[in-house]
Structures are given as structure tokens and as C-alpha cells.
């Protein structure tokens, strides 16, 4: 379409950018807005020495097929130097259906691993010491249930709860907002999320019981400014809900963790991540009266963006992912996932996932960017952009609060509409060549020329039947009386109030399936159907 394309002069979020920045573009005393790394307001990073003390956690998101197949992929990644695990669950597990459920069959093991019972979780981590390895769980509507099955796996390994490290995504608000694997209506969903946080605060001192996420809203189409504003709105909503049940902010806030996208607009992304830390510090201090310094210290996981990758000329995605990983590092991420370059098509192949890990290792060990903390601090442009993004994201947060706060705004569908409209603008700009995309609307191959593609991942055809069969055998083998009693107790606590976690643990130990435990909640809480303004 175009021969000599030039880059746009606004950021991806539409903030205008000058050709040159000088000291005059940075307002007032920078010192107050930056502080030192590891000190308020944490703009420069949550820890004093950052990557000199400890590199970020290299955590490739992985899961497919049966627990055994995923276990093999975990060993593959750990042998190649990955430093932690991140579990992808299939959609039936995320939505509380057993693999044998009629609506589940086409989706078993497709986008993640199938977990039907605690025994599956035992198999998933077979030979991997849970005392030594931090595990991330991308699970939300069924987070409480999956946590219970994980704790049973830890018990089976003889590992005490106090040793478990990792993160449960458990951010149900962004499911309604963008990711869409909700089951129950917002109010009981918030209750379950908060039950998990409350339980973890007491029993899992090294575990992050929630990862408050802007990533999915971003992937669903919003821009960097909206991503940050919406994430903070959710963080405020969870904090208020936990305080309302009598917890102290300083009691739970140090274990809150966050999750942001890092996309291709390098400086805007770095500025967003720096602004995020300052923004959360101010909210924690000014609004919630934090006194524990750890309460306002934002830690985050960064995933690079799948929507920036293209099906055309897929090898270009390696370069895109490298830039996004660099942005996450310059922005001070605590853990990072890099997308596979074949991910526009399928679950990443072993070759692609190895390359993603190597990308992180090369940036960490060869590029020198991890040598000093927050190397972009003091850049006229980056500091100016950090200030602008903080102000603009503050305006988004204010808009959500005007609509009654995150829960109410989401119930009305307000931010969902922002996201969809922003996605439409982006797609129009792309299809009309307004935003250049190499290999797509500029420097595209002639029609019909197929780019080099690796061997695509293939789901083993027998996986579904084997998984259904195995669960059926386990259901037959359990003690029917212990199972029935545990299910009755779960039903009672769901109806009468109180934290569901102890009852879930007993049910998971008694062999209850993820589908059975979810059905109990479905009966008590009902199911949510998104209001459809379309």
C-alpha cells in the first residue's frame, strides 16, 4: 500500500509526541516524583538493586492436553533454564466443567491443561518439588477450587502451605471486563475472590492470592492509558471489598500483585509501568492510609501482547516479542512471559517456546540492560511521558468511579464499550494503513506467497477420551460417604456465608471434581449472562 512509510507522531494511546524534549518539558522537582528504587513512591522500581540482586522470573505460560503432557512441557522448559512455572488451564477447567461435560468436549486440553480432580493436580506436578518452584495459575472463576486442588497436591508432596510460592490470577473483575471466563454474577464472584485472598493472607505467606490485571483489557482492545486506569479501578474495588469484610489494608496489600501488557510502543510502555508504581503508591497511601511500606510497593508480571503479533511473515514476531520483552525489563517487571512467534496460529511449538525463553536470557545476560536499575530515569521524554500517562490514567480511574466504581461500571457495560470502540479504531487504522504494520499493510508479501512456518503443535487425538476415562475411574474409587458429606458442607457454607476455602479443601481431598464443586456454586449463586448491547 505504501512504499516509504513513516512512523506516527502520537503514541499508541494517542498522546502527542514532540520531535525533541528538553529539561523544560519536565515539571518541577523530579526527585520527589522518583525517589530511589525500593523507596517511596517506587517509580524507579520495587526493590533497591532490582536485577543486580535477582533477575526477573522467566515464566513461560504453558499447558495443553492432559496433566502428563503438560508435566513433560514443564520439565522441557525447566531443563532449558526457565525459573518458574505458569499453568494454562483449558476452557472447561476455567469454566467449571468436567472434561466429560457435553459443552466441554470440543475444548478439552485445547488452550491449556485439563484438571478434573485434585489427582490431576498431583500428576501435573509429579516430580517437581512445590517447595522449590514458584507456580503461577491463570485461573479466575474457579480460582478457589483450583487453589484447593493445588493445596492437596502440596499436601501429597509433604510440602507445608507456608513454603508455597506463586500467584493465583483470581481477578474476576477483568473477566467481566475483557477475558470473559466468568461463571457467577459479579457479587458472588467478588466474594469468592476475596475468600481466596483472606485464606491466603492467613495460611500462604509467600503466595500472591491475586494478580490484578490490565493485560486482558489491553488485549481486548483498550490503549495503555485505559489499561492502567482500569487496573487501578479494580485494585481499589478489591481493596474496598476486603476492608468491608474487616481486613486491614496493610494486612493484605503487601501480597497484592499486578499484571500488565507490554506492547510495542517501547517508551510509552516503560512510562506506563513506571507510572503504575507511582499511582499505586499514592492510592495506597492517600486513599487507604497504608503505613506498611510494602503495601504501596507495586510488583507486576508482564506478558507481551499476542495482538501485536501477525499471521503474516510470522518470523517478524520474534523481533516484536524481543522489543516487548525489552520494554518489560526497562519498566522493571518481576516476571515476564514472551509469546511464541507461532502463537497467532496455535499453542506454541517446542521450538517457538524455547526461542521465547532464549529471548529473555539474551536480554538478561548479553544486552547489558539489566546492569543498572531504571536506566531510562531522567530522560526528558520518558519522564514527561510518565507524568502524562499517570495524569491520563487518573482521569480514566475518575471516570470509572463516577460510574459507581469498577463493579458497578462493569455491570453497566461502560468500560466494555470503551474497549470495543478502541479495538475498532485500531482495526480501522490497520486496515486503512494509517498505523503501519510491517508485513501486513506495509512491506507485505505478494498475495499467495506463504511465509516460512514451523511445524504447528498438534493436540493428541486420544487426549480427551483418556482424560474422561481417567476421571471416571477416580470418581468410582472415592469414598462415597466422605464425598457426599463434603459436598453438603460446601453447599451449606456457600449458602450461609463464611469462607469457602476450608470446605473446598475437604471436598478436593475427598475426590470431588472441579465440575461438581462448580455446580454447587452455580446452584447457590446462579450464572451470569453478559448484558448484550450489540
Amino acid at each position, binding site marked *: 500500500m505504501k512504499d516509504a512509510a513513516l512512523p506516527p507522531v502520537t503514541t499508541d494511546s494517542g498522546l502527542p509526541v514532540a520531535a525533541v524534549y528538553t529539561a523544560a518539558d519536565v515539571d518541577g522537582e523530579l526527585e520527589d516524583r522518583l525517589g530511589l528504587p525500593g523507596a517511596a513512591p517506587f517509580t524507579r522500581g520495587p526493590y533497591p538493586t532490582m536485577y543486580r540482586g535477582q533477575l526477573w522470573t522467566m515464566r513461560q505460560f504453558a499447558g495443553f492436553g492432559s496433566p502428563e503432557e503438560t508435566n513433560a512441557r514443564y520439565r522441557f522448559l525447566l531443563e532449558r533454564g526457565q525459573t518458574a512455572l505458569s499453568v494454562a488451564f483449558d476452557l472447561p477447567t476455567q469454566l467449571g466443567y468436567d472434561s466429560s461435560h457435553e459443552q466441554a468436549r470440543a*475444548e478439552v486440553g485445547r488452550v491449556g491443561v485439563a484438571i478434573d480432580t485434585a489427582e490431576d493436580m498431583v500428576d501435573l506436578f509429579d516430580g517437581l518439588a512445590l517447595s522449590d518452584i514458584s507456580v503461577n495459575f491463570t485461573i479466575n472463576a474457579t480460582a478457589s477450587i483450583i487453589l484447593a486442588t493445588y493445596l492437596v497436591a502440596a499436601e501429597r508432596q509433604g510440602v507445608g502451605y507456608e513454603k508455597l510460592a506463586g500467584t493465583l490470577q483470581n481477578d474476576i473483575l477483568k473477566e467481566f471486563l475483557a477475558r470473559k*471466563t466468568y461463571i457467577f454474577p459479579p457479587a458472588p464472584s467478588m466474594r469468592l475472590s476475596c475468600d481466596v485472598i483472606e485464606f491466603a493472607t492467613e495460611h500462604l505467606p509467600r503466595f500472591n492470592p491475586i494478580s490484578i490485571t490490565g493485560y486482558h483489557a489491553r488485549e*481486548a482492545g483498550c490503549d495503555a492509558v485505559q489499561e492502567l486506569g482500569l487496573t487501578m479501578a479494580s485494585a481499589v474495588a478489591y481493596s474496598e471489598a476486603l476492608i468491608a469484610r474487616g481486613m486491614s489494608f496493610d494486612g493484605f496489600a503487601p501480597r497484592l500483585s499486578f499484571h500488565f501488557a507490554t506492547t510495542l510502543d517501547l517508551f510509552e510502555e516503560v512510562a506506563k509501568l513506571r507510572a503504575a508504581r507511582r499511582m499505586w503508591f499514592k492510592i495506597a497511601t492517600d486513599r487507604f492510609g497504608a503505613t506498611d511500606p510494602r503495601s504501596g510497593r507495586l510488583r507486576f508480571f508482564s506478558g507481551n501482547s499476542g495482538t501485536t503479533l501477525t499471521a503474516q511473515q510470522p518470523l517478524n514476531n520474534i523481533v516484536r516479542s524481543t522489543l516487548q520483552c525489552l520494554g518489560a525489563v526497562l519498566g522493571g517487571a518481576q516476571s515476564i512471559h514472551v509469546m511464541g512467534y507461532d502463537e497467532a496460529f496455535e499453542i506454541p511449538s517446542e521450538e517457538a517456546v524455547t526461542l521465547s525463553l532464549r529471548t529473555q536470557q539474551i536480554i538478561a545476560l548479553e544486552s547489558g540492560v539489566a546492569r543498572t536499575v531504571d536506566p531510562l530515569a531522567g530522560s526528558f521524554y520518558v519522564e514527561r511521558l510518565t507524568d502524562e500517562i499517570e495524569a491520563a490514567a487518573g482521569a480514566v480511574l475518575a471516570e470509572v468511579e463516577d460510574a459507581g466504581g469498577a463493579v458497578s461500571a462493569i455491570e453497566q457495560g461502560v468500560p466494555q464499550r470503551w474497549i470495543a470502540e478502541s479495538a475498532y479504531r485500531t482495526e480501522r487504522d490497520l486496515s486503512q494503513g494509517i498505523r503501519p504494520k510491517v508485513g501486513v499493510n506495509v512491506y507485505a508479501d505478494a498475495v499467495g506467497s506463504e511465509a516460512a512456518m514451523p511445524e*504447528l503443535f498438534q493436540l493428541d487425538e486420544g487426549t480427551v477420551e483418556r482424560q474422561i476415562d481417567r476421571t471416571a475411574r477416580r470418581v468410582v474409587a472415592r469414598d462415597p460417604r466422605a464425598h457426599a458429606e463434603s459436598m453438603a458442607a460446601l453447599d451449606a457454607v456457600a449458602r450461609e456465608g463464611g469462607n469457602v476455602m476450608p470446605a473446598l479443601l475437604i471436598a478436593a481431598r475427598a475426590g470431588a471434581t472441579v465440575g461438581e464443586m462448580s455446580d454447587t456454586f452455580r446452584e447457590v449463586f446462579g450464572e451470569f449472562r453478559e448484558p448484550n448491547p*450489540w
Partner: protein
Amino acid sequence: MRPPRVVLAKPGLDGHDRGVKVLAMALRDAGAEVIYLGLRRSVAEIVQAAADDDADIIGISVLSGAHLELAGDLLREREAKGLGDVPVVLGGTIPAKDVEELRALGVAAVFPVGTNLIEVVYGVISLASRAKELR
């Protein structure tokens, strides 16, 4: 003469609705009538809606990898309900090797990720208009 009428939906369990919502807005801007049914619709619900709303075309979006099963189910349901003259189109993360298979199953057009939006809009509206004339 009324504009072409499009029923869009996401069958299966995946929640990636960015693409289908963008297409709904783009088709509306191009003058089509769009009925978007939302997430996690059964094939029976989708075909019933197409019958009730006298749709000229059915579009489904699948990004979980379950496209072959779901398209097959939808096409069988469409035949069973006597809607064989309403074309079915599909978009999503569809590997090249599956495009031919989907066409052989009876899917009128496949739009894998990366297809230009204008091309999708043109494809859907021209198929819908032709189906409308033929009925």
C-alpha cells in the same frame, strides 16, 4: 429492500470477542443489519436465532482451536433446521491446513486472523446479498 441481515455469535467456550465485536461494528458501518448473540452460544441457539430473525448469513468466531468440531456441529444443525440456503462463515485462529477442510465441510468462507477487515466486511456482505437474492 432491507439491507443484508447478519447473525454473529461465538459458539464453544472461548471468550475472545474482540474480533467479532469489531466485525459487528464494521458491518453496521457498512450498512448491514447485525444481530450479535454473544458468547458461549450453543449451535442450536445460533441456528434458531438465524431462523427467527430471517438471517441472510451466519458468522461464527472461534479462537480456541475447536473450529472443526464447532463448524461441523453448526452445519449439521443448520441442515436439520432446513436452513441450508443460509451460508455460514467463520473467523478466528485457523491454521492454513484447516481452511480447506472447513470449506469442504460446507463453510462458505473462512477468515483467519490477519485477514484485512475490509476484506472480511466485503466477503460477508457479498455472500449475504447473494443468499438473500436466491431465497
